[in-house]
């Protein structure tokens, strides 16, 4: 089997974070692929919730959009958009919110709205979607994105979704019911919040990656955990499941 690509390693590592029977509110793109891989591997009973109102969707391939017909066909329940956000997410029934991001800061706050000035943007991004309330109300949040100094910034141009806010107990002061981000998975390694400050620090490096690479790809002075670990290489089973998933093979 070919060597895994950086994106494949990131996806496999993200999938490993999801335990079986977790109720996971999934963003489209990389998080959706990782969640579906987890369901095919060690978490067959994971409940995937999409913002289109599909609860317990079991797609055979990564959907292009959150509203693909297959999500509704395979779901345990299909509810309206107001219901998915109020009864299911806001009421605290989601264990893990799984989000992507365009920019993230050291406290796991996310920007998916705009690069540059809001009124004269350099790049107008799609915006919030369901992310702000997923980040606010899920019991914990996983974030997944490719690591670069453009994406890992010292200051967000716009805060779309709140993570650990300004660190320490500042998130708790905002009255949010969810616990906030607990992991950021990238193509270089894994970051987790340091107890107390709740600043994200590098806790694992993927095969072939270096601390210097991680530091160079981070726009704030990235700190390295004293207990830095090495990511286990994706297994053949994980890789073949991921490739089959992307090819739509059941």
């Amino acid at each position: 089997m070919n060597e895994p690509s950086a994106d494949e390693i990131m996806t496999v590592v993200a999938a490993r974070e999801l335990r079986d029977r977790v109720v996971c509110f999934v963003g489209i793109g990389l998080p959706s692929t990782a969640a579906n891989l987890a369901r095919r591997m060690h978490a067959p009973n994971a409940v995937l919730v999409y913002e289109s109102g599909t609860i317990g969707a079991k797609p055979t391939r990564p959907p292009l959009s959150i509203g693909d017909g297959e999500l509704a066909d395979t779901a345990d329940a299909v509810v309206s958009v107001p219901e998915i956000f109020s009864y299911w997410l806001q009421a605290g029934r989601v264990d893990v919110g799984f989000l992507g991001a365009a920019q993230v800061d050291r406290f796991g706050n996310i920007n998916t709205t705009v690069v540059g000035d809001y009124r004269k943007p350099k790049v107008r991004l799609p915006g919030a979607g369901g992310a702000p309330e997923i980040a606010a109300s899920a019991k914990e949040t996983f974030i997944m994105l490719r690591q670069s100094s453009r994406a890992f910034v010292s200051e967000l141009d716009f805060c779309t979704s709140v993570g650990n806010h300004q660190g320490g107990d500042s998130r708790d002061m905002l009255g949010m019911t969810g616990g906030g981000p607990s992991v950021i998975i990238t193509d270089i390694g894994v970051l987790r919040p340091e107890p107390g400050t709740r600043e994200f620090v590098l806790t694992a490096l993927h095969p072939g990656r270096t601390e210097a690479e991680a530091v160079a790809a981070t726009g704030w002075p990235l700190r390295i955990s004293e207990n830095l670990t090495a990511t286990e290489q994706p297994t053949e089973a994980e890789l073949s499941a991921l490739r089959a998933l992307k090819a739509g093979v059941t």
Partner: protein
Amino acid sequence: MAMAEVMTLAEAVSSLVKDGDMIALEGFTHLIPFAAGHEIIRQGRRDLTLVRMTPDVLYDQMIGAGCARKLIFSWGGNPGVGSLHRLRDAVEHEWPRPLEIEEHSHAGMAARYVAGASGLPFGVLRGYSGTSFADYTDTIAEIICPFTGERLTAVPALRPDVGVIHAQQADRHGNIGLWGIQGVQKEAVLSADRSIVTVEEIVDVLDSRVTVTLPSWIVSAIAVVPGGAHPSYAHGYSERDNGFYVAWEEIARDRETFSTWADENILRRQSAGVS
């Protein structure tokens, strides 16, 4: 109470949609009323305030065609593909005209529709605190719960002049039935002053798969437009044309390519649907 009137799509748009109206064309990836949007472009409506949670390819087309003055939304992208180039061109370079934006999250928009459908002045949710939204969007306000003292967020009701949706079926009495992903189809009709529903077909009895029914007397106009959601889809009737969404990236990237496409595929086309 008036029953829904069955008419052509062209008649429905010409009698119910006025320049300057606030209109909501809804459909959460599924059941997007593309044909109705194209008819609005074809009839040259201007200065519209467009409301939609996910302004995707349809609103990219309407914005590029110059119909819109303002956009109220919560996610403006081409799902799974990338940017909306016509929306970005309007926001970044004011082409073909400036576009005011009022930006929310999905939960905020959903709360606003529910408030509108409920005849309440505002909706309430846990949300927005700590984010940058309130710095730029003035329809977000903190509110204190009078019972618990909790800090929550209030958002004003959406009350569109016209709500427009696509659905699978209407029966002979004009009752609307739809199934699959429901989005805010119900709220788009119930929050609006007037409504247009395009349907795949009129049937004697609504299908047993129907999960959302809108009684005839709540809908203003029904137009029979088979395939009226394309490139979106109608569950049980058609598949989402993912290829078109991917192709849109290239069509919309450039002003000229877009204008040529709109000319050939909307402006010079006959009105869609059964007459």
